């Protein structure tokens, strides 16, 4: 009996210790802040392709700022990113810093710190309009750090060899031009194009063009989506939507992954494109982080727009969609003022210091919309995108910010069904409309 009591008391003590352990660990940052000012930050990253680069960067930052330790909370590519983010918020254990889709930040805007008071600072160091296009309801909540563009990427060597001459990207102005090009490439025995069969690619990137191309004015695009939700749009008869799907049919016909279109292995698709197995790839300049470091791949790439009609002057045929898809935001729901201040300092350091810029530009391959970025990127794709930005040939896809968080899985899944040939265009249209109407009912 004595021994038992002794044992049980031991277990009780253990329990008590472990409980106090819990409380201590959560309170420790506070108590230590006041003594030796050690600050611990967490960084939630949805740019999953550069998880490693970010954690290396945090080590660099820790060396120059020994009192600040930043820990990465990684997420998988195309995985359950928002779900992971929400569980952190719900458990009152939010990440201090988050690199999130602009739409997610908009949805959770009251969980983040309002940085509008710092707006002048960021406007001074950034390129024109960069901060403006990141504003949400007129407030600066997320800080932009990258401009990304997407479209039909091409492998220059493969296209040139297939055509027998140097390919002039500006020669593709209409869908017919593109079809003729694909035909020629295919006759040379090269698969012309590859569609990455994942819902985020065909849903968020491809199909969103149908809304973004309605008007250069984002507010009108948003109105178009609202009209769809209210059943006021006859989508099947919409010329832009139909044109976009006609082009999709063309891509589908010449798709390298035609036999098994939905495998969607991102690493393999990027590798096949970079090693010249296929001429075009519907993707964005972010693939550089995947292929830039590979050995024995081609080094010259370019990008062309997705033509959605047969008249060269239609909006979009000579432009590529460009956005600031992700922003850095600072938590305001469970972080201490010290943590927030340290987070702001880190973001400023990241955007202005040589080390920060080197990491963002040359290691991660981002295209920073900031002035005085001296680091030269070897990302030829973002250089190609920059050319479109400089000549103003861009499509704003700001409408994406205002779409519900699940739109890319819902509409993307419908697109995948269409891609796999399991549904026709009429039912695709009906499915899309049904989804938008269900959004209105929420």
């Amino acid at each position, binding site marked *: 009996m004595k021994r038992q009591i002794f044992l049980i008391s031991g277990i009780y003590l253990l329990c008590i210790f472990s409980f106090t352990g819990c409380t201590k660990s959560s309170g420790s940052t506070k108590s230590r802040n006041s003594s030796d000012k050690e600050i611990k930050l967490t960084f939630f990253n949805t740019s999953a392709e550069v998880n490693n680069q970010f954690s290396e960067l945090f080590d660099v930052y820790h060396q120059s700022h020994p009192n600040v330790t930043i820990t990465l909370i990684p997420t998988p590519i195309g*995985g*359950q990113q928002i779900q992971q983010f929400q569980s952190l*918020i719900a458990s009152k254990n939010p990440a201090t810093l988050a690199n999130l889709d602009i739409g997610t930040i908009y*949805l959770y805007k009251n969980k983040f710190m309002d940085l509008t008071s710092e707006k002048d600072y960021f406007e001074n160091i950034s390129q024109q309009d960069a901060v403006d296009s990141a504003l949400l309801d007129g407030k600066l909540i997320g800080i932009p750090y990258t401009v990304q563009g997407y479209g039909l990427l091409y492998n220059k060597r493969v296209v040139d060899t297939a055509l027998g001459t140097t390919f002039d990207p500006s020669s593709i102005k209409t869908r017919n031009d593109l079809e003729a090009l694909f035909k020629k490439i295919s006759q040379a025995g090269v698969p012309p194009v590859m569609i990455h069969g994942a819902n985020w690619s065909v849903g968020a990137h491809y199909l969103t063009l149908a809304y973004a191309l309605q008007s250069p004015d984002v507010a009108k695009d948003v109105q178009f989506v609202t009209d769809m939700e209210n059943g006021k749009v006859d989508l099947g008869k919409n010329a832009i939507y139909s044109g976009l799907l006609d082009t999709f049919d063309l891509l589908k016909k010449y798709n390298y992954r035609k036999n098994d*279109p939905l495998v969607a292995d991102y690493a393999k698709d990027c590798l096949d494109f970079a090693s010249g197995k296929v001429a075009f790839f519907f993707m964005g300049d972010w693939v550089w982080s995947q292929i830039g470091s590979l050995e024995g791949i081609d080094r010259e790439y370019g990008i062309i727009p997705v033509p959605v009609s047969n008249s060269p002057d239609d909006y979009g045929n000579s432009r590529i969609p460009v956005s600031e898809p992700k922003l850095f935001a600072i938590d305001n729901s469970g972080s201490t003022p010290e943590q927030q201040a340290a987070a702001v300092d880190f973001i400023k350091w990241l955007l202005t210091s040589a080390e920060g810029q080197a990491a963002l530009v040359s290691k991660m391959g981002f295209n920073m919309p900031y002035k005085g970025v001296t680091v030269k990127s070897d990302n030829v794709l973002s250089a190609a995108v920059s050319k479109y930005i400089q000549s103003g040939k861009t499509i704003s896809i700001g409408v994406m910010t205002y779409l519900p*968080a699940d739109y890319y899985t819902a509409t993307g899944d419908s697109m995948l069904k269409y891609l*796999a040939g399991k549904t026709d265009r009429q039912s695709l249209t009906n499915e899309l409309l049904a989804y938008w109407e269900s959004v209105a009912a929420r």
Partner: protein
Amino acid sequence: MVKQKQKNIGTFLFFGGPAVFVFFAVVLVPLAFGFYLTLTNWNMSSGQHRFVWLKNYKQVFSDASYLSQLWFTLKYAFFSVIFSNAGAFFLGLSLNRGMKGQSVLRTGFFTPNLIGGLVLGYLWQILFSQVLPYIGRKYGLPLFATSWLSDTGRAFWALVIVNSWQLIGYLMIVYIAGFVNIPSDLLEAAEIDGAGGIKKITSIILPLSVSSITICVFLALSRSFLTYDLNLALTNGGPYGSTELASFHIVQKAFLSNQYGVGQAEAVILFIVVAAIALTQSFLMKKMEVEA
């Protein structure tokens, strides 16, 4: 008398208190709070909520996709239970005959249980979408020429196969423990009476293993119904959302679509379905148990 009672309560609290506290804190309170949330329109981004009573449940039952996913989950659980139990039973039987290397084999079959569902899912994902198609194309096998995960029908079987494969090792151990308890004199007597291998299984081993079967079917049922990690890693709900098991659908609904109340209502319904099936199963099978 009163003193004795007080002492009893004290002893109970001393020994049982921590367990009761933990049970309350991690099972009962979340369950009750979860049920409460189904009656509200709570969502993560606003943090505020008001009562909507049964609106969420109404929405669940009018959501055709949830009902089809529930049916999909039932089918998945049904086949998983059959395959994993049949496989585990015969595997356990053949690994209980004292053959050479028996314990190594047992360990080998058990290993998938020590690997998490996520890792397992990604491993099989590569197998299904890269390795098997490669072999299929090389040897002209149309069944394997394309990825199993990009076809709605075969993706279902891929899930069942991987889940059963993982469960088999675990259930096998339970079955072996049951076989060890079957008195050898019964088997010897049957042999003397001229019973062959199949007769011995059907007339002696099977009836005496009903208690193991009850446990194993229950384990397989509950684990199949609540599969999430495997679903996430192997198919991620794809192709085009056709392989979303109930848990997966709930997580998507609550955390991606931001309809927390509806997702939680779906979870409550799943709980009721699983509880009803599992209780009926163990009640019916308990009746079939016999003593040696």
